[in-house]
């Protein structure tokens, strides 16, 4: 390789990582649009969750077929990326298989990359079949119409392309390594358990052509990786990175425990305090905007809920386990997450266009994306939370939005209003007097 190659490669590297960095900054900015919530307590339990659930994929295998296939792709992705280090060094300095000096260890490494690449091809093909031929319910669900469906397939095609290029690159390399007496800089290095079967394809081609192909495959492979990396931000595939922080910051409390709104606690305490002076002027520091109860837009959600939205990879396990969705209701927990992300992106773009300030656009997550009908269909059963392989909680968003509907808009369904006024008046959701609570004792 001449210097031109190295310069081209450096430019590619800088553009690839530079653009990626810009988008990561945007993601962090958007997540920080959310309200504060403390998720830094108990780091031990949090690291453990991350190790078990993100790194260890423990929740994936609850559905064994998808789980095992996913682990193959995941392990493949992580391990094969070690090779990326060599590719980047080779690209920057014009070396060729810089780690070849490792000898046997190198052979083992390259050999295992190849086997993993083959397994990834197998798994990804199975994924394509599940999505497009078997058409599993959760993949043809109405939430996924249009872009999300194509996005999912593009990711799989991408992975097939990258793995194929990796194997072709090795096959041509092997072909050149095998030329008696050696050829150019193609030293004997690596073992090729898979690409040795592809290598004969290049018999009969001139050595120069095979070398050209080899370099072409090398370049396409690394360009593909950079394109894929930068595609992440625009796709549902961010989970490969965000699954880790997402499982770390996930809720550690029992799933049945919903947070007690602090702003409400203060008001209720004041109401119940017999010594409180109802005419007292509020404490002086009040430039603060009065707190809004519940959430109608993404800024009302907390930052972990927004991180959840970026992390969601739309696998649909939540929706397929949701009792409301299974019985034909409009609610889909996956759609709650997708809507939250779409709205967050919309708000983010608004901020970009308006030089860092959000200009109200007369839209909100509530109504423009998520309808009250969806929110009221939830039974709060936690099936979606339990199912999510990366501990996303669609339920917490649903509950925050119900709070807004009830406390800010008084927009509960009529029977719910009746239930609530019963509790207020007689301490039970039905119209029975509190004085009759113990009557059962004497009834036969």
């Amino acid at each position, binding site marked *: 390789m001449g210097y031109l190659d190295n310069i081209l490669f450096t430019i590619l590297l800088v553009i690839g990582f530079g653009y990626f960095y810009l988008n990561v900054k945007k993601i962090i900015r958007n997540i920080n649009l959310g309200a504060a919530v403390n998720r830094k307590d108990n780091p031990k339990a949090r690291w453990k969750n991350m190790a078990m659930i993100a790194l260890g994929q423990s929740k994936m295998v609850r559905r064994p077929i998808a789980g095992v296939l996913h682990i193959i792709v995941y392990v493949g992705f992580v391990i094969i990326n070690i090779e990326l280090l060599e590719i980047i060094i080779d690209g920057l300095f014009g070396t060729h298989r810089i780690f070849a000096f490792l000898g046997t260890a190198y052979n083992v490494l390259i050999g295992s990359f190849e086997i993993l690449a083959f397994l990834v091809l197998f798994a990804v093909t199975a994924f394509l079949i599940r999505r497009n031929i078997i058409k599993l319910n959760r993949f043809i669900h109405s939430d996924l119409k249009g872009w999300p469906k194509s996005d999912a397939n593009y990711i799989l095609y991408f992975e097939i392309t990258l793995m194929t290029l990796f194997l072709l690159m090795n096959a041509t390399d092997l072909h050149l390594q095998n030329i008696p007496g050696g050829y150019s800089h193609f030293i004997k290095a690596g073992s090729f358990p898979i690409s040795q079967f592809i290598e004969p394809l290049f018999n009969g081609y001139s050595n120069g052509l095979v070398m050209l192909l080899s370099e072409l495959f090398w370049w396409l492979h690394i360009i593909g990786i950079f394109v894929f990396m930068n595609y992440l931000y625009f796709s549902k595939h961010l989970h490969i990175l965000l699954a880790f922080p997402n499982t770390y910051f996930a809720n550690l409390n029992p799933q*049945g425990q919903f947070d007690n709104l602090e702003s409400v606690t203060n008001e209720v305490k004041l109401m119940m305090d017999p010594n409180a002076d109802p005419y007292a002027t509020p404490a002086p520091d009040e430039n603060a905007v009065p707190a809004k109860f519940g959430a109608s837009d993404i800024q009302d959600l907390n930052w972990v809920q927004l991180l959840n939205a970026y992390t969601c990879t739309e696998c649909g396990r939540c929706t397929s386990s949701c009792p409301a969705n299974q019985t034909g209701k409009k609610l889909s927990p996956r759609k709650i997450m997708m809507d939250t992300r779409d709205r967050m992106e919309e708000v983010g773009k608004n901020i970009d266009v308006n030089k860092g300030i959000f200009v109200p656009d007369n839209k909100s997550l509530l109504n423009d994306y998520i309808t009250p009908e969806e929110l009221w269909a939830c*039974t709060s059963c936690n099936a979606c939370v339990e199912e999510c392989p990366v501990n996303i909680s669609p339920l917490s968003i649903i509950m925050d939005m119900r709070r807004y509907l009830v406390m800010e808009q008084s927009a*509960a369904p009529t029977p719910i209003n009746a239930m609530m006024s019963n509790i207020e008046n007689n301490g039970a959701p039905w119209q029975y007097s509190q004085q009759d609570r113990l009557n059962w004792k004497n009834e036969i």
Partner: protein
Amino acid sequence: MSEVLIVPTMAEMLAQGKQPEVLFWVGCAGSFDDRSKKITKAFVQILNRANVSFAVLGTEESCTGDPAKRAGNEFLFQMQAMMNIEVLNAYEIKKIVTACPHCFNTLKNEYPELGGKYEVLHHTEFLKSLLDNGRLTIEGGQFKGKRITFHDPCYLGRANKVYEAPRDLIQKLDAELVEMKRSRANGLCCGAGGAQMFKDAEPGNKEINIERTEDALETKPDIIAAGCPFCNTMMTDGIKNKEKEGEVKVLDIAELIANAQDL
């Protein structure tokens, strides 16, 4: 039910200068709903038989606020919670048992932050501990060999990870415990949670309780065991809808134990 139930209230206990071992939180369903009152009575029978020193709040009990909270009315929930906590703390309550998983979850998880810190047990956990301590014996009686399937209440199971206590009790009845295809962490909701009990379902193509009843019927059970008054209602309605009320009964774990012993 022949024997007289002994149900002291906290006020009576206090008047006698006594503190019970445990407070039985009856809950709204257990107090007012005709079907659920039978569960309440069955549980009291067992407590009486096991000589457990307990008391109820009686007319001083009020809704925990669970349905209000799940509906989104945090104000009403916290009002209820703080009023209840005042009463509970005034009686210096340390330990609470309840037959309703919704009360259980709220008291256990959501009251502590508001100043109500108690040891809270679901009645199946409490019965299991009585059994383990030799204070209660369970015989199969009429349920020997019967096929019983247990429907996990969401607020007991997923919400609080109590899966085994109710199953251990069923197995003590010498009954054949059969699992539905969706059980424990994968259990399907009965359709009542999240304040759904108090409203009509949104438009769809099926009622959730029917879907769940079908799960239960697939196991060809003699009895569907429940651990929640609301699940009990939903499953009972489902069985009626399928016109199976002659063959399949829906019973609470407390009723199974009380009936087995012919209390």
